[in-house]
């Protein structure tokens, strides 16, 4: 008995020093994070509570939540918010379906697996701005090949609906490979025996997919959706290049940029960026708490916590 107790003591002693070492190893990274992420966030919140327009630097003063009242009662903000939500929901939905199809193709590919995966990833490897420019030129009337082929005689990027469609197309083209890659990792989690068992139990291809594959890979799907939703909500590059926010196609990031950098209104711009931060936090909260998405890196069985 005595020896057991001694050993247990030694064990927890070892655990404690291990924990101390862990903290020490984490500390530098944590400090850098606080410096480059924490401080800007705090400073944004600080700015958002002030009237601070660089064109009128003399009028700087603390005004509480007045900026928030201004932004939240402004129709431009809500239009941009609606556009952002629309782009997010539609593009993520399309990406999920296409990404799943791609992932299954990659999963089932027997020949030249590496080549197939590499080719699939090419769009994701291209810088967003570069890709956005290629879409922009492609849809420019008279010179663009897509504009000539699909909508001859009109300028799609000058119409709101067409512009949104093109923005979504550019987003989907660019990030579907990322989605596919995350889903591919999820597909690998479904044991072959499970699908064989389902086949023996009488399930057809579609039933196997819906009743076995999807539920088993649900954690991976939720992680992929979370990542993509957060990314899509902050859409900026494509809109900036394709329409510059013309015809009410601005996203929330886009009008934040307009106010903060172009309008030089630090107070209003910071307020908008804080609101985006809050929206993103809500999305993440909903995914993690309501859908039971496991944080990447935690145990594989994240569901139902």
């Amino acid at each position, binding site marked *: 008995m005595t020896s057991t107790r001694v050993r247990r003591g030694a064990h927890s002693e070892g655990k404690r020093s291990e924990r101390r070492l862990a903290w020490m190893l984490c500390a530098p990274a944590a400090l850098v994070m606080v410096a480059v992420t924490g401080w800007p966030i705090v400073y944004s919140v600080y700015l958002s509570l002030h009237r601070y327009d660089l064109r009128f630097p003399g009028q700087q003063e603390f005004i509480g939540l007045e900026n928030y009242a201004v932004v939240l009662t402004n129709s431009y903000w809500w239009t941009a918010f609606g556009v952002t939500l629309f782009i997010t929901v539609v593009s993520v939905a399309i990406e999920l379906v296409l990404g799943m199809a791609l992932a299954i193709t990659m999963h089932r590919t027997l020949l030249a697996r590496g080549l197939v995966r590499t080719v699939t990833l090419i769009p994701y490897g291209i810088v967003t701005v570069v890709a956005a420019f290629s879409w922009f030129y492609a849809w420019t009337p008279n010179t663009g090949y897509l504009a000539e082929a699909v909508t001859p005689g009109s300028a799609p990027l000058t119409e709101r609906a067409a512009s949104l469609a093109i923005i979504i197309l550019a987003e989907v083209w660019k990030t579907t490979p990322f989605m596919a890659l995350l889903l591919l990792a999820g597909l690998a989690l479904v*044991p072959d*025996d*499970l699908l*064989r*068992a*389902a*086949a*023996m*139990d*009488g*399930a*057809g291809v579609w*039933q196997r997919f819906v*009743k*076995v594959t999807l*539920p*088993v890979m*649900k954690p991976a799907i939720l992680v992929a959706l979370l990542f993509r939703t957060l990314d899509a909500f902050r859409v900026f590059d494509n809109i900036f290049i394709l329409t510059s926010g013309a015809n009410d196609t601005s996203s929330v990031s886009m009008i934040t940029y307009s106010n903060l950098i172009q309008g030089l209104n630090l107070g209003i711009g910071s307020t908008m960026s804080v609101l985006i931060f809050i929206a993103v936090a809500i999305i993440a909260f909903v995914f993690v708490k309501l859908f039971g998405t496991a944080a990447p890196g935690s145990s594989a*069985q994240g569901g139902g916590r």
Partner: protein
Amino acid sequence: MAEIVLDKVSKRYPDGALAVSDIDLTVGDGEFVILVGPSGCGKSTTLNMVAGLEDITTGELRIDGERMNERAPKDRDIAMVFQSYALYPHMSVRENMAFPLRLAKAPHEEVRRRVEEAARVLDLTEHLDRRPANLSGGQRQRVAMGRAIVREPKAFLMDEPLSNLDAKLRGQMRTSLSRLQKQLGTTTVYVTHDQTEAMTLGDRIVVLQAGHVQQIGSPQHLYDRPSNLFVAGFIGSPSMNFLTAVVEDGHLRTPLGEVPLTDRVRRHLEAADAPRELIVGLRPEHFEDAALVEEHVREEGRTFTATVDVLESLGSEKYAHFALETEGVRARQLQDLADVTGSADLATGGTAQLVTRLSATSGARENAELTVWFDPDRLVLFDPDSGTNLTYEG
């Protein structure tokens, strides 16, 4: 319930590897047939072809007289139990077992009745609402069985269903599996690499090696009359002893002394045009401590004296190991067997080893001389090149 017929079924993979070669097998209605062999012998491939999970390259599979080659697994009406159990992790035990019935669009009430009936038979009633992750290995195994039996399929296919259980539980499950199969009377094809499981469970055993059927027969038949060296060495534990022997003037000269050839054996040898050098096989239980054999019985047998190398006492019996001062046997089939079972004691090429089973009352001691009696009638002779049994036909 059904009769399963494999008619010259072969499986060749796209890379040209021949996994299964010309299997002819008829599994009778309600029969329990075991496919046994070392890993890589093609037994699981054969089972998967019956299931429809792998295509048949050539030959025909018939269930109840109907050709099945082109049917999808779900249209063959057979259930399968996997080694990994393959339980659906997102479903409760009840949903797992109900899954095949739900897919078959069985009425709700019937699904409930059949699942609860199966749960009762398998002693799972109190676990019906738990997830597989919260069950023990034995319980998961029973859920997998339950999922197979609720459907009342034509046949069960089982792919090493007990090999993930610990030894004691495996023994229990073996017994209950056997009882269950008898109760249901459902045709069953069962794959295992464990010869004990094969011997205890099967009505008939199919021994496979490198995609070829070595022998088909009842457990006792395979044990008593193995058709070749591979089967002889594979079936039985501890394994049969193999020694080199030479035929001389109607006698057989073995490391254990000269043994007269009976007329029956001599006729067989002549008919088979056997070589003079043979391999003789003797099972451990065909030996006995000479001191314990009655005088008149002793006369009929032969004895030899050697030093006991290792003595294992199991309480109910004793195993005496001898290292004989003669060379061990060399034969291709024994080499194959040693390769696949990983046992170096067969066909070592070194000195011959002999294992004998003695009564518990034997006074044998390690490193002491012991006179051992054996019955030469139980000798089995094999052709060293082909491995064929020369003592019995079939």
